[in-house]
C-alpha cells in the first residue's frame, strides 16, 4: 500500500493541531469556524494516507459530515452576530443560532442522533488514524460546547447525554469489529461527558481526559497486537500474553469498573448528579453503561476465557511477539489503570 511522505504527514498533523489551537484561542465566531475548517481539511489527507478504497470512502463521508457541521456553525455564528451584534461566542445565544450550533456540535462530536457516521468512518481507517479521530478531533467542538453551555437548556443537554449513553451501549452489542466497538464506546463516553456539563464543566473536562487516556491505550494496544476483530484478539495471548492481559485490564477500566481509572470519571459524575438531585439521569446513564459493559466483557471473555489454536507438537512459535519497545503504550497503560488509586492526591488541584 502506498504511504504518505513522512514529512508531509508530520506537516498535516501539525496543521490539525494548529486548527484546534486556533479554536481554543478564538473569541470570534469566524475564527472558530476557520480553526475547525483548517483542522478538518488538514485531517482529510491523513485519512487517505494509506491507500485503500475503504479509506477513501471513510474520508469522503467524514468530509461531507464535517463540512455540513462547519457550515451550520458558521451560519449560527452569523445569525448570532446579526441578532445581537456581537461575534463573541460567550455572549448569550438566541434560540435559532443556538439550535444551529448544537446541531453542528452534535455532528462534529457524533452525539446522537447525529452519530451514524462515526462507526462507518472509523471502520475504514487504520487504528492510529482512528485514534486521532476519536480523541483530538473532539477537543475543538467540546471547547465550543463548554463556551456556549450557559445558553443551552439543562434538560436538553442532559437528555442528549443519556441518549448518547444508551445508543452507544445498544449499538455496540452486535459488533465483532474492534474499531466499530470503539466507535460506539466513544459515543457512550461522550454521552457521560456532556451530561455533566451544565453542573460541572471541569468534571466534564476531567472525564474527557480520562476517556482520551484509556481509549488511546486501547487503540495503541490493538495496533501493536495487529488485531482488528474479536476472533483475532483471542489469538493474541499466544504471542503477547502480557500485553493482551494489560489490554484486558484497560478494557475493564474503559467499562468503568473499580478500582481502575475509568471508574473515577463515572463515580464523580454520578456523585455530582446526585448532589443536584438528578436521579433519573443517573439511572439512565448507568443503564446505558450496563449495555456497554456487555461488549467490554465480551472483549474480556475473548481474551481470557477462550483458547486459540496452538501447535502443541512444535516448540517453534508460529507468530512472533512485537519486538519494539513501546514506552508511550506502557505509560498510558499505567495511567489507564492506576490513576484512581492516586486520585486523592491530585483531584483537589483540579477543582
Amino acid at each position, binding site marked *: 500500500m502506498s504511504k504518505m511522505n513522512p514529512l508531509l504527514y508530520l506537516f498535516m498533523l501539525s496543521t490539525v493541531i494548529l486548527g484546534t489551537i486556533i479554536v481554543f484561542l478564538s473569541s470570534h465566531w469566524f475564527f472558530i469556524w476557520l480553526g475547525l475548517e483548517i483542522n478538518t481539511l488538514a485531517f482529510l489527507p491523513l485519512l487517505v494516507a494509506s491507500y485503500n*478504497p475503504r479509506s477513501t470512502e471513510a474520508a469522503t463521508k467524514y468530509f461531507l459530515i464535517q463540512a455540513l457541521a462547519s457550515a451550520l456553525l458558521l451560519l449560527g455564528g452569523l445569525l448570532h452576530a446579526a441578532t445581537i451584534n456581537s461575534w463573541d461566542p460567550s455572549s448569550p445565544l438566541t434560540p435559532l443560532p443556538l439550535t444551529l450550533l448544537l446541531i453542528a456540535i452534535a455532528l462534529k462530536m457524533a452525539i446522537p442522533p447525529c452519530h451514524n457516521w462515526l462507526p462507518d468512518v472509523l471502520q475504514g481507517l487504520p487504528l492510529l488514524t482512528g485514534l486521532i479521530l476519536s480523541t483530538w478531533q473532539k477537543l475543538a467542538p467540546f471547547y465550543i460546547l463548554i463556551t456556549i453551555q450557559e445558553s443551552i437548556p439543562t434538560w436538553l443537554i442532559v437528555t442528549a447525554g443519556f441518549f448518547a449513553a444508551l445508543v452507544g451501549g445498544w449499538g455496540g*452489542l452486535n459488533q*465483532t469489529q474492534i474499531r466499530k466497538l470503539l466507535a460506539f464506546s466513544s459515543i457512550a463516553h461522550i454521552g457521560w461527558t456532556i451530561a455533566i456539563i451544565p453542573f460541572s464543566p471541569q468534571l466534564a473536562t476531567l472525564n474527557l481526559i480520562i476517556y482520551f487516556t484509556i481509549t488511546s491505550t486501547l487503540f495503541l494496544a490493538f495496533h501493536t497486537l495487529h488485531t482488528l476483530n*474479536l476472533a483475532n484478539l483471542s489469538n493474541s495471548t499466544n504471542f503477547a500474553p502480557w500485553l493482551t492481559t494489560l489490554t484486558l485490564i484497560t478494557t475493564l477500566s474503559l467499562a468503568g469498573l473499580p478500582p481502575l481509572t475509568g471508574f473515577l470519571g463515572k463515580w464523580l459524575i454520578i456523585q455530582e448528579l446526585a448532589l443536584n438531585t438528578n436521579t433519573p439521569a443517573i439511572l439512565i446513564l448507568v443503564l446505558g453503561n450496563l449495555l456497554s459493559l456487555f461488549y467490554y466483557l465480551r472483549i474480556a471473555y475473548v481474551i481470557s476465557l477462550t483458547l486459540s489454536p496452538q501447535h502443541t507438537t512444535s516448540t517453534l512459535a508460529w507468530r512472533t511477539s512485537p519486538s519494539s519497545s513501546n514506552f508511550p503504550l506502557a505509560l498510558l497503560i499505567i495511567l489507564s489503570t492506576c490513576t484512581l488509586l492516586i486520585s486523592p492526591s491530585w483531584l483537589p488541584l483540579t477543582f
Partner: protein
Amino acid sequence: MLALRISSNSCIRRVLLNVAMKSTVIPCVHAASFSGGLSNIGHHLGMLAREMVDKAKCPNLDIMVNSSKKLWDFNDKGNLDKFVVATDKEMGGKSEAEFIMSKNNKALFCGHLTTEIPRDGVTEYSGYCTLKSKQLYKSFNRKLQMDLTPYNVVNMRVRGDGRSYMVNLLTESFFSNNKDDMWNYFLFTRGGPYWQELTIPFSKFFLTHRGRIQDRQASVDLERVNAIGLTMADAVDGDFALEIDYIGVSYDYTHTEEFAYEMYERNPQPKRR
C-alpha cells in the same frame, strides 16, 4: 506486480465485466391503484419492522461460538433459485450453461463452453459461463449485503472436472466509478471421483475493474458483499461440470495474512545522490 497473470486474450476481461454488470431484478409490487400502492408500502413497512427486530436480537453474537457459516447448502434444492446463470449468449456467443441438481442431490454447474466468436464484426473474443448469487433486497428495495467481516476464508466442497474456474466477489461500492469492481481468485479442480474441500482466504482475492487487474490493489471489503459467483472461461472448448456441495465462510485462526500481494512503488523517482 502481481505474481499471477490473466490470459492476454481479454476474454476473461469480458467475462468479469459481464459478471459485474449483470443486471439484477429488483423485486417490486406493481401498484396499479392507490390501494395497491398503500399495500405495497405496508408490505415494506412490515419488512422494515422485521429487520429492526432481527437486528435487536444481535445475530452476530453467535460468532463467539461458531466461527463458520454455510452460506448455501445445495442439499436443499431451494438454494438453486438463489443463483443466476449467464453465458456469452447475451453477446451472441454459443456457450451454454445451467445450474441444476445432480443425481447425487448436489448442485451441478454444467454446460458447454464455446470460444467461437459471433460474427457481428464487433466482438473479438468469446467463451464464458458464469454463476452468480442473486442480489438480496431488504425493505424499500434497498440492497441487502452480506457482512463477512467475522470470517477470513471461503470454504467450498466441490467436485470438478479438472478445469479451472474463477471465484468472484462483488461488493457494494460507495462511488459510482467503483461499481464494476470485483475481487477474483482461481479455483483449480482436480477432476476424478473425489470431492475437494477448498479453502480460499479472502486475503488472496485480487481487485479487478471491468475485467482488468488493477495496478493499485486493495483487500476485499468484507462488510458489504453483494454476491459470490463462479466463472468458467478457460478458453478451452468443451463440456464442463462442477458439482458443488456447499459454499460457506469460516474464520481460520492460523491465517493471519491481511493481503497477499506486495505493492511496489509505481513510477519510482531516481534518488538524488
